[in-house]
Structures are given as C-alpha cells and as structure tokens.
C-alpha cells in the first residue's frame, strides 16, 4: 500500500482485516511521518516508538500508564502517571496502541496552543498560523496524518475549535457519555474526552469504543454509545437512503451565531454548508438562543472557579515544581476563580454565572423543541497568525463564543470540515440534544459523504 497514513480509521481497519496492510507497516509509516514532521509541527511532546497496534495520539493530559504526562506545563515536567485513564484501557482493549502524547495549551487553557510551556504546535495548513486549542497537537497530528486518530478534551471548545482550524473531524460527546477518569481536570463540570478523526465514521466508531459508565466517573452513567442498527452502515457511501434520512431532520440555525464578530468569508462557507443540508432534504428552521451573549462571561467564572480548585494540588510539595512555574494563563484563571469564589463575591459571580448557565440550558431546551440539530460556525474566524491574540486574553476568549454555550449545556457537538476561507479550513458545528450523538453524527456523516472536504489534505512535502 502506498499512502498508508492518509487512510481513515475505518479504512485502516479494513486494510488490516483484508491483510492488505500489516501492523508493522502501519506503525512504521506513522512513525516515519511523525519523525519527519514533528520538528516543524511540534504536535507531539512525547513519541512512543514501540506502538505495535493501531497508532493513536493522546492529548497530554490524559493518563497513559508509564508514559510521561506534562499537561503542557512545566509543573508536571517529568511526571509519569501510575495508572491508565478509563478511555486508555478501553482503547487498548480494541487493539489500539499509543504512538505519543500531544501538545496542548497548559492544562487545556487556551484557544491557540500558544499557552503550552513546550512551544506551540503549528497549523499544518500554514505553519505561521495557530492550530487552535487546547487540543492543538491532537488536531495537528490527525490533520498531518501523524496518527490514525487522536483523543482530545473539550471544556469550552477544545476539541471542536482546533478540529475546525485544522480541517479535521472533532466530536465533543455529551457530558456524562465518556468517563473522565484519568484526564487531568480543568473544569470538572464541563470537561469531556472525545475523538479527533479523519472522518465522521471514525468519530462514531471511536465514540463506541470509549463511551459508557463504569469508569469511576460518578457523572458518567450512560450506556456505551452504540449506533442504532437501523441506521448502521448506510452512511459509508453516498446513497439515496441518506436523502431520506435527512428529510426527517430539522436543522436549526441560531441567528445569534451569525452576528458581530463572525468573519464574512467564514459566514459564506457556513451558509453554503447549511444550504447543502437543505438541498439534501433537511428542513432548515430559524431558532433563537437569546442568552448566547452572556455565555462567555458565565463560562469564564464557572470554569475558572473549578480550575482554582483543580490546580490547587500543584502546591510544590508532591509534584516537584513550585507554583511560579505556572504559565500566565493558568495563573490568570487560578486568580479569577479564587476571586469568584471568595466570600463576599461568591453570589455576585459564581452564583450568578450558575444562573446564567441554567438560562442558556433553557435556551437550548426551547430551541430543540423546534429542531433536531443546531448548526453554525465552530469558530468566528479561520486560524490566525501565531502571536496574533496572545497578548489580548479577552479577544482570545471570544474566539470560543460559539462552542462555549454547548459546553455549558453539556450537549454533544461535532466539527465537520465544510470548506475554506482565505485558504484555511472552516468547520461546521453540529450541536445535538443531550445524549443524542446519533443524530449529530448522522447529519455530519451524510454531509461529509456528499462533499469532498475530508479528502483535502495540507501539503506537507515542502
């Protein structure tokens, strides 16, 4: 086989099954590519040369036993987890091995990858651009064919946004669908582990592998995600059945996701994608999410409050490094959160933010009475230049304005490649009802199959 590393997970599994490809060849091809590309892309912080099964990249805040884990921070330099995260055990039981740990914004805090203490990963479509964040290395690894797929984590958009900016598929499952056990917590009430893949079919399969309760996460009691038998397999190719499926789907479009701040080129690409869904038979309806404008503010209070507790254990006593080793963004959020929870400020900040969160949830409840999925942009812009926003945290925070509301609500969200603006990839965000990944993936997969965006690859030869 010639182009081993461009195969999707589904295709790789088929090739292995048909003996067109051996695991040795597979791993050799990926390792060579990692070695060739990583010096310029900085996607991996650790490379495991002994990966013998299907080589998968893991965001470096998910614990893999005996493999170093930095969380993108100096604080955890040289830390080696003594146990596997639940998702790691589950993947291992599916014949997956781990080819490396991927770069990220420190403790998953950032939207550009630039908060990594180990230098930012680069966008394979243009090395002077950010890859997005915080699962930057995972998105880059998949976009540049350095892994069959990758795991990321999404708290406010950290899977969807880098997937969008790098032109790959990223799925944030419903909160409670996948066990968080073993992933360094950023904001415990928001964090979810999810796949970054080369196709929607791959994301569907990986979700089946990693989902379900019983993994020591008390908020994860869901059954493992299993694609319904009646819909299974009908998406693998463009077929008349796809049209029939979409005809039963109502696609909601919130006007709040097309307002000020949305790049006009990106808007054009997204509008085209929505039109395509309409052409495929879906009914397009307008929905309202009136509290969207308060989402970022509420998120930065709730998230930072949880961060301030979750990072308190790095006190310099047991993990070797002193607190002065935290990067600026980590310090900023620890202080914001500590303040928001302080006596005298708690009600004005934390309690109020929690109320806003409830209102945003209600927005979605009402909207989903009118539609099955909600679509819009993942990011208001395409990937920007490295250094472009790093000194302006507020602008950086606003780049997650379209992903944060879904995070606060705990619903599933998918980013599917849907075109290019200024030569950089654009992702379509598909949000679904809580625990209804099925419909989200169905819409994504039908769209993907009638377009050829997923076959577009960045030119990495030069």
């Amino acid at each position, binding site marked *: 086989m010639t182009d081993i590393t461009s195969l999707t997970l589904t295709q790789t599994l088929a090739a292995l099954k048909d003996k067109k490809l051996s695991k040795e060849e597979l791993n050799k091809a990926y390792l060579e590519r990692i070695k060739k590309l990583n010096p310029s892309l900085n996607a991996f912080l650790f490379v495991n040369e002994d990966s013998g099964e299907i080589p998968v990249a893991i965001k470096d805040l998910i614990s893999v036993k005996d493999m170093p884990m930095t969380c993108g921070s100096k604080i955890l330099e040289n830390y080696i987890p003594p*146990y596997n995260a639940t998702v790691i055990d589950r993947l291992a039981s599916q014949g997956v091995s781990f080819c490396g740990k991927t770069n990220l914004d420190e403790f998953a805090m950032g939207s550009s990858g630039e908060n990594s203490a180990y230098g930012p990963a680069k966008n394979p479509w243009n090395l002077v651009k950010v890859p997005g964040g915080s699962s930057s290395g995972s998105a880059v690894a998949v976009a540049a064919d350095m892994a069959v797929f990758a795991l990321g984590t999404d708290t406010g958009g950290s899977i969807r946004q880098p997937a969008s900016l790098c032109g790959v598929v990223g799925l944030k499952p419903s909160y409670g669908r996948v066990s968080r056990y073993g992933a360094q917590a950023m904001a415990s009430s928001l964090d979810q582990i999810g796949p970054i893949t080369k196709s929607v079919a791959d994301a569907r399969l990986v979700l089946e592998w990693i989902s379900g309760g019983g993994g020591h996460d008390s908020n994860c009691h869901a059954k493992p995600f299993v694609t319904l038998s009646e819909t299974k397999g009908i998406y693998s190719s463009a077929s008349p059945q796809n049209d029939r499926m979409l005809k039963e789907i109502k696609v909601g479009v919130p006007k709040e996701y097309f307002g000020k701040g949305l790049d006009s080129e990106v808007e054009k690409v997204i509008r085209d994608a929505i039109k395509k869904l309409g052409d495929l038979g879906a009914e397009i309806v307008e929905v309202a999410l009136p509290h969207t404008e308060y989402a970022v503010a509420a998120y930065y209070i709730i998230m930072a409050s*949880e961060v301030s507790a979750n990072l308190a254990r790095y006190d310099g006593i*047991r993990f070797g490094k002193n607190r002065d080793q935290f990067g600026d963004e980590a310090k900023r959020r620890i202080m914001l959160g500590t303040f928001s929870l302080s006596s005298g400020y708690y009600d004005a900040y934390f309690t109020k933010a929690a109320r806003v969160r409830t209102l945003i949830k209600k927005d979605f409840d009402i909207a989903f009475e009118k539609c099955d999925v909600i679509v819009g942009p993942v990011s208001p812009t395409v990937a920007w230049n490295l250094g472009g926003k790093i000194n302006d945290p507020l602008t950086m925070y606003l780049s997650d304005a379209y992903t944060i509301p879904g995070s606060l609500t705990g619903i599933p969200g998918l980013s599917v490649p849907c075109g290019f603006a200024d030569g950089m990839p654009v992702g379509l965000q598909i949000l679904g009802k809580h625990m209804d990944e099925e419909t989200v993936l169905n819409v994504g997969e039908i769209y993907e199959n009638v377009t050829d965006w997923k076959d577009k690859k960045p030119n990495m030869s030069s």
Partner: protein
Amino acid sequence: MNKVYETVIGIEVHVELNTKTKMFCRCSADYFGKKPNTHTCPVCLGIPGALPYINEEAIKKCMRIGLALNCSVNEQSYFERKNYFYPDLAKGYQISQLVKPLNINGQLEVEDESGVTSIIRINRVHQEEDTGKLTHVGSETLIDFNRSGVPLVEIVTEPDFHSSAQVKDYAKKLQQIFRYLGVSNADMERGDMRLEANVSVRPVGQKELPPYRVELKNINSFRFMQAAIEYEIKRQIWVLERGETLTQETRGWNETKKETYLQRSKEEAHDYRYFPEPDLPELKIDTLQLRELLRKQLPELPAQKVKRFFDEYGLNKAQIAMMADSKEMAEFFEEAVKVGSKYKVESIKVANFIINKKVNIEDINPEQLIKDIVNQNTGMISDEKELEKVVKEVIDENSKAVEDFKAGKEVALQVIIGSVMKKTKGKAEIKKVKEILEGVLKS
C-alpha cells in the same frame, strides 16, 4: 459558676466511620498502625485525573447517626469542595458538605453534674473525608496518606451548652451512640473521635450571642476538654472583667501547664471558598423509603435502653449506667438475667455481682456467671484465685505431706485436701481444689 456571666458553648464532633473502604475510593479504611502510604490509590493521593466515587456504606452510616440523633434527612443533599492549603490535604480541597448536609435539625438530651437535663439542638450531621497525617521528624515532615479519604462525619450543635459537665455528658453519649450503632470505634486517643468546642461567655440576662467565640481544638480526651473549657471560662471572664475585649481565635490545651494557648487568631481565619463538588452528582435520597429502612435497622439506642432497664429490671441509675454502658455489656447482662431466672437469681443481684466483682465479660459467659452467683449464695468458694491462695498456704504448712505425695503416696493428697477443707470451713469446691493441687504439685 460566676454570678455575673453565663457560658455559651457549641460543640463540633468529628467521627471516623469504620467502613471497609474509604469515602471516595475503594482503598481499605482500616489504616491505623499500618505501614505509611500503603492504603493509597490515585484518588486518595490526588494524582492528576483521579475522580471521587461515593461509598454508599458511609452514606448509610452517616444517616444512621443522623437518625439516632433525631435529625431529619435532607431529600436533596450534595457535596461541596472546601478549599484550603495544608500539606496533608492531597487535592488542595476537602470534599465536605455546607449548604445541604445529609442530616439536619436533630437533638440530644444531656445532663449536668447535678443531674438536671436539657436539650441540645443539633444543627447538622454531615459527611466528609479525612486528611492525611503529618509526622514531624527533626526538621523534616513526613506525610502518610493512609488516612486520606477515610469517611468522616461531622456533628455540629447549636450553642446550647452552658457548662463543661454538659459537654462531657454530650461527648460520652455520642461516643456511646456511635458504638451502639457500630459505625465507629470512637476512640479519642486514636483520633477516631475528635472534639472542638466553641466557648464564649456573656452577662447573665443577655439574649444575643457574644460577638466572639474561642475555638478549642486538638484536644484528645474528654477530661482535657472539660479542663480546657473550665480554664477558658475563667480566662474569658478575667479578660472581660479587666474591661478588655475578646476576639475570635483558636486555642489548644497545654496539659503540663494546665492552660489554653493561642493557635490562630481571627486575622488568619480561612476563606474556604466552598462550591458544589462538580465531580459528584447530587444525592437524591428517597427519604421515606430509605429512612424507614434505616430506622428499622437501628439498634435500641442508649437512651431507650436506659429507660427499659429501669422499667424492666428495676435497676437504679448507677446500675443502669454500668449495665447499659456498652451494647456488649447490655447483651451480657440481659442474657445472664435470663439464665438467672432459672435459678431464681434476681436481675439486681446479677447487676450487683457484675459491678462488685468487676466482672470482665470477655473472660466469662453468662451461664458461668450465674453459677458463680449461685455458689456464692450457698457459700461455696469457687473463685480460683481465692482457692489458690488457700492451697498455697496449706502446702507451705504441710511440707511432709507434699514430700510424701511426690514420693508416690497418693494418700498424702487426701491429707492436703483435708487441710484445705478445714481452713475453708468446708466451703471449698472439692473438684476445683483437686484441679489446683494437681497443677501446683506436678509443676
């Protein structure tokens, strides 16, 4: 008690539950005296990515305590994070409860030294987790996380105590209840049970609470706590009498100097920044069903037992205090009374015998006890120690008979036994005398 001032005390009790495993992981909770850091896992060590998962047995035991203290169960209860820094706190926060504790609004009756009873209102009985343990060796500090995450229940009263005697009675009653319920060993010295007293004084007649309170902490015996409270009352009155003001502070007890000492002043007070624990779902308790189930499983509690022993056995207060002291003692006593009824031994006699002879219930069974009582009634001496004493005297006085016996003259034994009977005026139990003699002579 000073004539001008009245003491106001509220009590916080921490008790470690004797569950098999820890509160939020499945490490063994039986940590006492074990090799440091052997009862640990990613959860109780606060390793990155580890998450808490609730121990149901602990929740049930916490609710049992709540029920025993006449609390109502909160139908919706949740855990919160209490944020503070201390090297023995693995996660940098303790999982505890503030806003919605498992049990609220209970009460317990206490007595003062003159036997006057009053009701102490219990504000809450909530569930939390213990911390690790620090050991200071020279200039170094060692951390043992075996205790980290062991289930801890906190019981907080309203400021309803007015004397140290009431506090002591309350603490003893709680300890007894924990042991009756079988939820904790409640050993003060081992730290299973810990007391904190919030002490202040106010002029008699003043209704509102004093504008300060002194927290007495880290005191590991009832006696020391009582002494510390007594000292503190005197100190506070002395300070107020001098026209000075008292402020919120934490004080410890120096047993050598017999005085309290400042540990932390108000300025150093923590802001714990409590917020709902996002890693754990809300506890939705089907109160009616679970409460009834747990109530049915509750043993007879000390107060009920005391009343019944009075009604049923006609014991006096002192006798009841001894007989109902522990569940084990009460069971032994009742069993002995049952056996005793066959031999016409009255329950009061049983109680008196146990008390006067300082009977250790682990060394004797109820049947034997009744036999001893019957023998005592008939004047027979069956107490081994007493018989041994007599036998030794006789042996010393009859060296010839002993030599004869050792030379093989079996008859000599009869001579010795005869002497023993003579000395005890015929009241020695012959079978026992023979046994003892054989033992002594053959050694």
